[in-house]
């Protein structure tokens, strides 16, 4: 129990440090912290659907982009404040997930993965088509507003909420059912689990975080266009973060996000293609050599509980 208390104390200290950080950090520092929170929220969300149920989402950035556009449109066209607009971005992403998830998650097998592979292109095409609402290829400019610090805090809360959600899911019966589906879906069905419904719930939960993060990122950047909010690279990055850290765990995505984000900022920002190539290699290496990721190795080595 003392180990647990120590962990909680460390967690509280980290939270306190991150809370006072903006008062001492430069503008760049705040922006970097905000982006780290965003990656934690995105990676953690991808983990909820793909890490827990084993259904790979190759298009999670679509929820980020949908949230960004929903929030952007609400701010620009309806004059909403950025905070409720970002939350509405989460709702919009959830609705999109419902439309895609309902037909595709009823089936076993690769249908969902492939549907998600195409989703990004489709949402991007829709954004270009509804030019009047979205500004099309010209993008959408949000009114100028210096809100980097409030956005930092809200993004931090979003990241914390995603981690907490993951913890509660993994330690609940709901989470156990999801992991049963991942290990053997036929057996899960035979045990009386309504697999389609559980997969859909997990998918909806995994769409909310990216939707809110998208809305906040739109506010932070002040300008959104299809290329900037629907990049395939974002999906790749969140997948790499989760796989590297350890899929299906609470802290694996956080670990992966922190390590790879720092690495990315310090080393790789200058070699964009080499960076992506490296990500491809990480995915291949992790799948073949350490499917449980870094945290999985630590769990075995130090006999850590499954619920971290």
């Amino acid at each position: 129990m003392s180990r647990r208390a120590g962990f909680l104390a460390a967690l509280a200290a980290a939270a306190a440090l991150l809370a006072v950080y903006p008062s001492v950090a430069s503008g760049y520092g705040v922006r970097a912290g905000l982006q780290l929170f965003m990656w934690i929220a995105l990676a953690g969300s991808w983990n909820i659907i793909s890490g827990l149920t084993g259904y790979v989402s190759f298009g999670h950035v679509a929820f980020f982009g949908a949230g960004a556009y929903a929030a952007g449109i609400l701010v620009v066209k309806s004059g909403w404040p950025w905070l409720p607009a970002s939350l509405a971005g989460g709702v919009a992403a959830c609705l999109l997930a419902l439309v895609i998830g309902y037909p595709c998650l009823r089936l076993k097998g690769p249908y969902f993965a492939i549907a998600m592979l195409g989703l990004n292109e489709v949402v991007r095409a829709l954004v270009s088509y509804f030019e009047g609402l979205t500004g099309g290829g010209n993008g959408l400019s949000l009114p100028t507003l210096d809100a980097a610090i409030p956005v930092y805090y809200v993004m931090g809360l979003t990241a914390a909420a995603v981690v907490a959600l993951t913890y509660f899911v993994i330690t609940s019966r709901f989470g156990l059912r999801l992991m049963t589906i991942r290990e053997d879906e036929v057996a899960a069905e035979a045990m009386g689990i309504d697999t389609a419904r559980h997969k859909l719930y997990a998918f909806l939960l995994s769409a909310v975080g990216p939707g809110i993060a998208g809305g906040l990122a739109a506010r932070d950047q002040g300008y959104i266009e299809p290329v900037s909010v629907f990049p395939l690279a974002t999906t790749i990055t969140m997948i790499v973060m989760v796989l590297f850290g350890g899929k299906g765990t609470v802290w694996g995505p956080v670990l992966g996000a922190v390590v790879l984000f720092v690495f990315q900022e310090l080393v790789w920002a200058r070699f964009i293609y080499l960076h992506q190539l490296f990500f491809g290699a990480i995915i291949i290496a992790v799948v073949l050599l350490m499917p449980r990721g870094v945290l999985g190795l630590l769990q075995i080595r130090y006999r850590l509980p499954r619920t971290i």
Partner: protein
Amino acid sequence: MNVVITPGMLGQVVISGILSGALYAMVALGLALIFGVMRVINIAHGPFLMLGAYATFVLHQALGLDPYLTLPASMLLLFALGALLQRTLVFRVVDAPELSSLLLTFGISISLVNLAQLGFTSDLRAIEYITGSWPLGPFALSKARTIAFGVALALTGAAFLVLGRTRLGKAIRATSQNRDVALACGINVQGIHLLTFGFAAALAGAGGTLLSVIVAIQPDMGQIWTFKSFLVIVLGGAGNYPGALVGGLLLGLIEQLSSLFLTAQLSEVIAYLLLVVVLLVRPTGLLGGRQV
């Protein structure tokens, strides 16, 4: 959008749809074979096509070869690459959960695209080789697309002949129906996996060669083909190889018709909606059933 649609335009669009449909069918057949035999969805299938297009581009630029004459070279190259990747990486995940094979081929796909970015830069490349069209009654047949149609149809036909009439084809079908029984019958299942993967990559490479004289070549051109090929398989019915031909023609027609009646921008959206509707209503594909 008050354009009057004449029967002539409709006919022209149907012709374009059929012409592109054969290409879809050929590329999708490769994906269907890999899925049928190994139960692996090859996310890197589209990037294989991209590499085929670059192979043609390089051979055309460096050696001045006629783009169509590079077809065997491009197919051979992709066969070798596919076999190599199967032997070194993919065979390790054939029996693993779907998550592993999807992620592994996704990793391969990212690596191939970014290797192409490094090697060829992201500049758009074009091979200006064959332009213009042949008149056919009131319609016009784009030369490059018509040749692509003919070659794709011939290669698809040849693939069906191999599958249906040869011992190798029989072994591939047997492995795809039941691997353990195939093994018990003395079929070299590992060898069949290797050949199938190489063969499928070669079909994608052929698609790249045929496309290289039609569209601009760039490292990102491939990914959408993985999705479209899968769409073709779903339309035709997974596990049903002849279904790929029907699915390909159907996808070509749907894309062309929706760009006529709506706008070209939305043709991908329509194709996507079709995927969702088919999965809802008839998940076994329009032709249904598994008749390998």
